[in-house]
């Protein structure tokens, strides 16, 4: 094994678990997540020399996100019905109360919706992404802004809305579960 590979394995491979975790939250199936991570690690390896001084974890998660977007776009072009994440940030917040729990792609079973995991999986892509990067991967606002390519102000407002929506649905589910269980 040459020196470059060794350096990559020492510096980047420790974040493989984080990359996989993030991919699982982004992708619609474990298989999709694995494909995304494999592609991301290869791209990371190719672009490794360009990594200077920035945080390795944030850098790797940015690549995972980009690979996921590319995979989604390709699926879309092949005619697979998926909703792409909204690219613009015109302030048009989807009316979440009216749409309720509308998952991306295939429908999520009712009992899965009742867990916090199901609620997060059902969040719009932009919300889910920022929430996972902050709460699970513990990236800073600046790192999230770089990873998602939006200004820090947008990160803050998205995060606030994502948390608000999730908290509301979580509380509603906790109250509703009393009589929702057959």
């Amino acid at each position, binding site marked *: 094994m*040459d020196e470059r*590979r060794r350096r*990559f394995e020492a*510096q980047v491979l*420790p*974040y*493989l*678990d*984080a990359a*996989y*975790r993030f991919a*699982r939250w982004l992708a619609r199936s474990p298989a999709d997540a*694995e494909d995304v*991570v*494999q592609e991301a*690690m*290869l791209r990371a*390896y*190719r672009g490794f020399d360009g990594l200077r001084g920035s945080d*390795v*974890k944030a850098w790797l998660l940015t690549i995972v996100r980009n690979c996921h977007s590319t995979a989604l776009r390709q699926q879309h072009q092949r005619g697979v019905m998926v909703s792409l994440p909204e690219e613009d940030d015109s302030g048009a917040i989807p009316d979440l109360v009216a749409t309720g729990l509308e998952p991306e792609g295939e429908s999520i079973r009712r009992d899965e919706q009742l*867990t*916090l*995991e199901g609620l*997060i999986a059902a969040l719009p892509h932009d919300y889910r992404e920022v*929430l996972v990067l*902050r*709460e*699970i991967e*513990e990236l*800073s*606002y600046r790192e999230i802004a770089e990873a998602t390519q939006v200004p820090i102000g947008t990160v*803050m*407002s998205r*995060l*606030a809305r994502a*948390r608000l929506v*999730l*908290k509301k649905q*979580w509380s509603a589910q906790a109250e509703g579960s009393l009589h929702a269980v057959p």
Partner: protein
Amino acid sequence: MQCPESLRVQAHFDREVDAVTAADIERHLEHCIECQELYQELKQLRVGMRGELPQFETPGALRTRIRRSLDREDAAAAPRSHRPGATKWRLPSFWAGAASGLAAGAMAAAVAFFFLVPLRTTSVTDELIGDHVTSLLSSRMIDVISTDQHTVKPWFAGHTDVSPVVADFKPQGYELIGGRVAYLEHQRAAVVVYRHGRHIINVFGWAATQRPIAGEKTRNGYHLVYWKAGDLQYCAVSDTSWGELHALVRLLQQLAARDARS
């Protein structure tokens, strides 16, 4: 209508503000009931997201796939680099034929030996896991039993080569229960022992080398988080969840940063 300060409260919660702003927001929180509720909600959500969600572990098959894809990438890049003597080694057909027959067993043994050899050279991760597991199994988990940092810290001065950060974080759920010494990377490392619920967290501290270690690892079901603070290399080892381990690491990092400033 939401309080106009809600975004700043959130930023404070996420530890994204400086000390002056933090004090400002704390003052606001004292009298704004809406923001107090928001802060509590943010906390509950965080506890839920860090405690209740599934821990997705990277499948072993995926690790293998990634290694193979990097191998292919190396192989594709090698001819371009014109390294002398980098000719590709190929299995002569004779040996290929022999391997499929009687020699297969011997080949398998040789292959097994080839793969097993690297395991003998112990890495620091192996040393840490070894000490962590041994401490849980034996009665020598703690050399100095104390919940008082002012007892544990001076004890380290006499028994180890380093003086790591020590504090009791009982209000936050991480109770200091003592310290011990471990032999690590050819030096006497300090181990601060915390209890979190039913879990033991060992925080190792030793003199950092030229190449500090950062990042996280999972080995045999134990999580390890490495970081460097000042001249010291730290590693926290436990079988708690990532969220619980990271929370302690953050507390220790904040403490080290405060110590460095004062």
